[in-house]
């Protein structure tokens, strides 16, 4: 009883020591180990990990889950003393970045049933540094209860989402945050052209309720009913539906099927197991695992589709229209400009863009309702649209390596001239779009007042 005051601390110490003991319990008895850095959720990785370790009991698979962007960052930061064997993620761009940094090792493999390309898009990296294992298309998913409550029609094409009825009901992520969204944005830009593509993107974003910070934020928002329609990669839609949420997914006609990829990290400490894992993933057995209701991805192996669950389309039989042949070189070339531009003119100024869009919608409704039409008002609305759509960067500039170099510290080669700094350039863009959005709002309101 003389020592009461000291007891709590002692107890705390004991508690921690106890926890330490519990954690120090025996480890796996496996001889080999395989470290997989991935952006995929455990719903996907667990299935493959379990199946792979069943076939290869001697290999202990360790999954390190990071978002695509922090995964890339992690591999770059840790390259000096690499401990990771495999990088496994959706976006080919992320692999292109790693390839550019020299962080991918070479491993390629021919598997029967996996074609070299799909509608002209190569499934594997032509340089043999990474391989596609599943196909992803882009489209929209919507919450049926939400659509019913707000009386919204199901969208069929990108343009549908530009409609005023969807104002405040759309969710989208930012390409700089989400590799899959980047692919979506690129698909639209390549499918419709630079200027028209951005017009579509701005018109859709002008209807956005929010620009989410993670790709998963979009399906999550649709699932919970925060917003009605989300622009997502297909498996988000399929797996959400498979999990019981009242959602539907649809591919618009301007879409591309792009492979999700896997690659061996340069200087992988466990190269052998890494290759075994990739072999397993591409085998018919591995490919069939993609049909798990929590995964629902499209295999790259044609023969796997024999067992496809109902509702999952087969891209090899033409059930998905792909008008766009995705040019990943172009995508990689203007990667940073597209990301920065999207954030500056859309993500960070969403309120301004939304207000301008709403004002234009209101003016257009008024114009349509006025019956007779009003030339002056129509002209003002057109001007307002033009202001919203004005871009600070044109298509050539976006592909200019000198211009792109502003956004990277490491220059591709010594001749690249860097003029200006990212912050400086962004400030110019920002000043321009803020002013344009403001003026557009003003003009639209003016037009409305004429009616």
């Amino acid at each position, binding site marked *: *009883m*003389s*020592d*009461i*005051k000291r007891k709590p601390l002692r107890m705390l110490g004991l508690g921690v020591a106890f926890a330490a003991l519990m954690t120090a319990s025996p480890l796996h008895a496996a001889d080999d180990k395989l470290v997989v850095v991935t952006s995929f959720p455990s719903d996907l990785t667990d299935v493959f990990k379990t199946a792979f370790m069943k076939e290869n009991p001697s290999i202990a698979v360790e999954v390190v889950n990071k978002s695509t962007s922090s995964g890339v960052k992690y591999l770059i930061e840790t390259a000096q003393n690499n401990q990771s064997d495999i990088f496994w993620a959706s976006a080919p761009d992320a692999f292109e970045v790693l390839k550019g940094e020299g962080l991918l090792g070479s491993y390629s493999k021919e598997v029967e049933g996996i074609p070299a390309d799909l509608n002209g898009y190569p499934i594997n990296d032509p340089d043999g540094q990474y391989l596609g294992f599943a196909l992803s298309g882009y489209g929209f998913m919507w919450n049926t209860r939400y659509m019913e409550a707000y009386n919204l029609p199901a969208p069929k094409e990108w343009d549908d989402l530009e409609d005023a009825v969807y104002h405040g009901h759309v969710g989208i992520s930012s390409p700089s945050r989400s590799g899959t969204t980047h692919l979506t944005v690129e698909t639209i830009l390549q499918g419709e052209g630079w200027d028209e593509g951005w017009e579509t993107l701005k018109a859709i974003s002008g209807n956005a309720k929010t620009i989410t910070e993670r790709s998963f934020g979009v399906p999550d928002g649709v699932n919970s009913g925060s917003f009605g329609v989300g622009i997502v990669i297909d498996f988000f839609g399929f797996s959400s539906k498979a999990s019981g949420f009242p959602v539907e997914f649809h591919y618009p006609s301007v879409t591309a099927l792009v492979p999700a990829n896997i690659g061996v990290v340069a200087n992988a400490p466990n190269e052998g197991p890494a290759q075994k894992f990739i072999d397993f993933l591409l085998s018919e057995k591995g490919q069939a695992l993609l049909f798990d209701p929590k995964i629902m991805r499209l295999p790259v192996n044609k023969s796997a589709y024999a067992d496809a669950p109902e509702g999952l389309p087969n891209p090899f039989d033409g059930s998905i229209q792909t008008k766009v042949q995705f040019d990943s070189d172009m995508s990689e070339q203007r990667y940073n400009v597209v990301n920065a531009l999207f954030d500056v003119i859309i993500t960070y100024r969403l309120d301004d863009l939304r207000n301008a869009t709403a004002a234009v919608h209101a003016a257009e409704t008024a114009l349509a309702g006025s019956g007779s039409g009003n030339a002056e008002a129509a002209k003002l609305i057109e001007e307002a649209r033009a202001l919203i759509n004005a871009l600070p960067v044109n298509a050539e500039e976006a592909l200019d390596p000198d211009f792109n170099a502003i956004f990277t510290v490491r220059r591709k080669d010594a001749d690249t001239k860097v003029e200006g700094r990212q912050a400086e350039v962004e400030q110019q863009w920002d000043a321009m779009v803020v002013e344009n959005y403001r003026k557009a709002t003003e003009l639209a309101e003016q037009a409305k007042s004429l009616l």
Partner: protein
Amino acid sequence: MNMPVKSVTTHESPQDVKPGAVEPVEIDIRNVSLSFGATEVLKGIDLKIEPGEFFAFLGPSGSGKSTLLRAIAGFGPTPKGQILLGGQDVVGMAPWKRNVGMVFQSYALWPHMSVARNVAFGLDERRVPKAETERRVKAALEMVGMSQYAERYPSQLSGGQQQRVALARTIVVEPRVLLLDEPLSNLDANLRVQMRQDLLKLQRRLGITTIFVTHDQEEANTICDRIAVMADGVVQQVGRPDDVYDTPANAFVASFLGTANVLEGSVRKEAGGSVFVLHSGIALPCAENASPGAGKLVLRPQSISFGGSSENGLKGTVMSAEFLGGMIRYAIDVAGQTLLVDEVHTRGHGRRKAGEQVSLKVRHQEGVLIGG
């Protein structure tokens, strides 16, 4: 009682104190100065305290008395000069190596330890074997009359009891000297009188050199062998309490120790010896051998009495009266000079009224001249 068993190792413990009587040591303070930042708190203190003496530092707050005491114990900034305990200079030595016992004004009993463990603390630190610790704790508590409270916690004790425990905790380690920092100031008046007698008895029993810091002259006077009156970081006067009272070295000491009329004027040789002439022209008797010149005369209120011959008598008017119990203290206006005069109070006698004309007599030889 449940005391942890300490292994006897080669720990550099303080003194290896043996039980039994302590050889009293001398405290020699030589030219000690100390500053808190720019403020000089002690200015060249020189003091010698004899072995076994019960010594007091007496002074108002801010005089530096506590600072000096703490410097002896090793607390506060390191002072300049030397502090010799039994011939050993302790300046710069860590407090825990000095073997100096201090009782704090607030008692500083550790609220998380029982009385017994508080008292045993110093013995634990000295690696005293368990059995002996137990015996000595018991003895120390008995000495202060607190044996039955050994298992209580400080919060369950009264102020006086805490005081005794603090004392027991200090003396149980048999320190070289005992320092008491205003130990009675937190007690009520009756307990204070009782406690100071107990303190004196204890000190005499232990024979330990003791310094007692107080601002209360009565406490110092009643129990201390000698006192040092301090003000402004300087020792004003050292001596036996009655000597200091009777022959104060300066006006400060005179007024701080009891009540005094400090009168300004000058000494003049006259036929019948020396007289002290106030500015108002009134002449008062003073010591025969006083040298002429300006100075101050200290007159205790009890050195003046009412009534008296016309010769050296003073005429005055009663201004006010204070009832002090055994005495009545009057303020008398004498030609513009206020004098305090004590008169023994006897039962049934009324007070003199304000405005009453009185004549006063100054007892010869009782005035003390101090430097101008």
